[in-house]
């Protein structure tokens, strides 16, 4: 099980700040693909070019491995400052 968290527009459009994901996923790409099966909005919001990913609060790419109890975040490009 991994905790998946969302921020910014991604959080707002998916209408949830976080979910617990029970299905196995070995890396970011696999997790992303499985989440995208949850519906059209998920498929669109979690497109690879649209959202960035962090694993355990460190920026990660699609081939980054995921282990049980990791925290995976999906969010849009940042706009602070």
């Amino acid at each position: 099980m991994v905790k998946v968290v969302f921020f910014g527009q991604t959080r707002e459009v998916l209408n949830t700040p976080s979910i617990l994901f029970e299905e196995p996923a070995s890396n970011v790409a696999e997790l992303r693909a499985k989440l995208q099966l949850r519906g059209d909005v998920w498929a669109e919001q979690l497109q690879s070019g649209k959202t960035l990913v962090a694993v355990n609060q460190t920026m990660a790419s699609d081939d980054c491995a995921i282990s049980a109890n990791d925290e995976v975040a999906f969010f849009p490009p940042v706009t602070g400052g």
Partner: protein
Amino acid sequence: MVSVQSTPIDVNAAYSSLTENTDADGAAVFFVGKVRDNNVDATVYQLTLEHYPGMTERVIEEIISAARARWSLNRISVIHRVGPIQVGEEIVFVGVTSTHRHNAFNAAEFIMDKLKTQAPFWKKERSEQGEKWIEARESDTLAADKWS
């Protein structure tokens, strides 16, 4: 010093704590980012800043470490507001002290450029045209890339 806070930034207090007991430093440079009342031809009423608690603070610490690796610096303060922020209020304070001005100027700009493109904050704008999430700017990415 890093602070991500929902309370207003007291710029005078931030400057005082940045510079107190730093008599070896001849330079103190600080930048303050404010909420302006306009963006792409619309009158802006308010911004709301969201962040990723934990990761945001850590990324800022990493940016500060990268600045220290590049220039000889003494004190560094980064204070960032989150939550609703009104027009005219401060969003961010970046302060750097060093022996001489060039290091402090460069480091302050470097920290701001990296903050804009790496620190997990997201801005939502409320304007006369309604609410919308601000999109990342290509010009900010180019500004950050010039340091690599």
